[in-house]
């Protein structure tokens, strides 16, 4: 273990004092959009998004991206809600809000790369969910977007220690969570859980954030957890990772997450992994373009 005992790190994490609170616009949006769709009023959604000018502008950029299935230009939030529907706008608004969480200053992990991975995982999770008939593809998007929240926590709270872990992962070509475990004694799943609980995210999202690198531990929301875990792995192996190359060979059928997801989605048995991989490669350019448009380093 590292220079500092795990307990001290946990204590520092436990305070989360240096971590930003949930973005101002995000909390009311999340609260409002948690209601059943038939009870949402469009004008209320439009108003909530439009209260923050930069958020509104970012939402329009996303609403006009082919990643969200929109090919004809929309130039107003109202138009975007009408064209894409409430759920898509919810995803978009949340995506834009969480971009504000990036720590300022130099970090070992380029925030642009981090957001490219998060957004890539969100899009792949949604696509994957649709292809295998998973019950809630839009939830899969949100879970994919937020799954690595703990990396942000580590960047804020444990910058020095996390840099050492990142370097270890880079030089050895191993997955980041393995490097964190050997350097910090905990992973971004552990630190992500603390923030997710503090933010009072829903239990299924907390499970994904906490357990996506150890899916056997989570059973309550196993399907969503396994789906995001596999999407994350596909992104990391396919050039939409954290800017690290994991020097290894993966057989998706051997992953514990595969067996878990199969219980919920029997069509996974004959799933075309190659096609999903090629589709993901087709998203990469658009994810890069979109994050470059949306994310402005502080």
């Amino acid at each position, binding site marked *: 273990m590292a220079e500092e005992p795990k307990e001290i790190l946990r204590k520092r994490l436990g305070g989360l004092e240096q971590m930003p609170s949930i973005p101002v616009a995000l909390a009311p949006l999340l609260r409002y959009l948690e209601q059943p769709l038939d009870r949402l009023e469009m004008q209320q959604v439009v108003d909530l998004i439009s*209260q923050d000018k930069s958020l509104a502008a970012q939402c329009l950029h996303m609403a*006009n991206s082919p990643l969200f299935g929109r*090919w004809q230009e929309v130039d107003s939030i109202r138009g975007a809600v009408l064209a894409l529907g409430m759920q898509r706008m919810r995803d978009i608004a949340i995506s834009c809000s969480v971009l504000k969480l990036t720590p300022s200053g130099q970090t070992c992990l380029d925030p642009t790369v981090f957001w490219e991975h998060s957004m890539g995982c969100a899009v792949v999770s949604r696509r994957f969910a649709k292809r295998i008939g998973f019950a809630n593809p839009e939830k899969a998007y949100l879970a994919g977007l937020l799954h690595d929240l703990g990396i942000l926590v580590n960047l804020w709270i444990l910058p020095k220690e996390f840099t050492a872990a990142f370097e270890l992962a880079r030089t050895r070509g191993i997955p980041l969570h393995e490097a964190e475990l050997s350097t910090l004694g905990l992973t971004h799943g552990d630190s992500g859980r603390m923030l997710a609980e503090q933010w009072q995210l829903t239990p299924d999202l907390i499970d994904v954030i906490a357990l996506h690198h150890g899916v056997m531990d989570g059973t309550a929301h196993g399907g969503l957890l396994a789906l995001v875990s596999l999407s994350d792995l596909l992104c990391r192996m396919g050039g939409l990772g954290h800017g690290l190359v994991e020097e290894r060979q*993966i057989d998706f059928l051997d992953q514990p997450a595969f067996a878990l997801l199969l219980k919920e989605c029997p069509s996974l048995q004959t799933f075309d992994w*190659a096609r999903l991989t090629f589709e993901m490669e087709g998203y990469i350019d658009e994810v890069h373009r979109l994050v470059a448009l949306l994310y402005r380093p502080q």
Partner: protein
Amino acid sequence: MIDSTASAMKVDSAQAAPDPQLIRIRDLVYQVAGIFQPDNKLRLMADRCEKRMKVLGVATLREYYECLTIKPIRQAELLALLNEITIGETCFFRNQPQLDALRNIVLPQIIEARAKLPLPHLRLWSAACSTGEEPYTLSMLLLEESAGRLKGWTFEILATDLNERSIAQAKLGSYGDYSTRNVTPYYRQKYFVERGENLHVRPEVQAHVSFSRLNFRDDARMAFMKGLDLIMCCNALIYFDGASKRRVIQHFYSNLLPHGYLFLGHSESLYGISDDFRLVHLPSATAYVKGEKRTVAR
């Protein structure tokens, strides 16, 4: 509040929606030929279809889809389109992530498995070598390892193609700018000699490669290609119908040693063709390995 602020903001102009007929053609090509054109390549695919449509004198993609499916010319037309899709793809170091994965991950595994056999010798097959760029690239990669991982080893690269003229060209080992566009100065200096406007592959690279003409439908000769550690077969299987493709793949399976690898072209898949080979993911690349056909536990 009306979202007037947002509506006044400039948004990126949205991309033109892909024609649903183009998506149908993309899916048809994948289903029949096993090569996938992701979203970011659709524009290119549209251009290629247009080129073919001009030749045929058809005005719309809908009509062109009929040419690919219903009309008597459908087989010939599919071949013509596939030719357009793969045109100009042959060059040295064509797919760098695949080559990196081969060198850094696959080769060490092959060496480990081969070390248990009597002779320290590797046998690779470039199965559709065209004008020789691929087998010469493999030869250079292995020569780079000859002082390291492959110290004390010998290796041979069998290079075959259906086209006699391509083989004759390959044997010359002389290449222009287009074929050598991905060759780095390091490789250029070490493994090529400049003669006039062309680059000639050095004799030590050529010495490991043996060229011959081979038709994949020639079962006797296919069965003769034994004891292989790796087969590379890019953009050749796409021209075979399902039954012929299955037959070729069965040969490949028998040709490979138990630890052997099969690499296909970029965005090429064996989905629905073989249950014997298993897809594995490598960093930004995929490959197939021999595996027992198995039932996944539900």
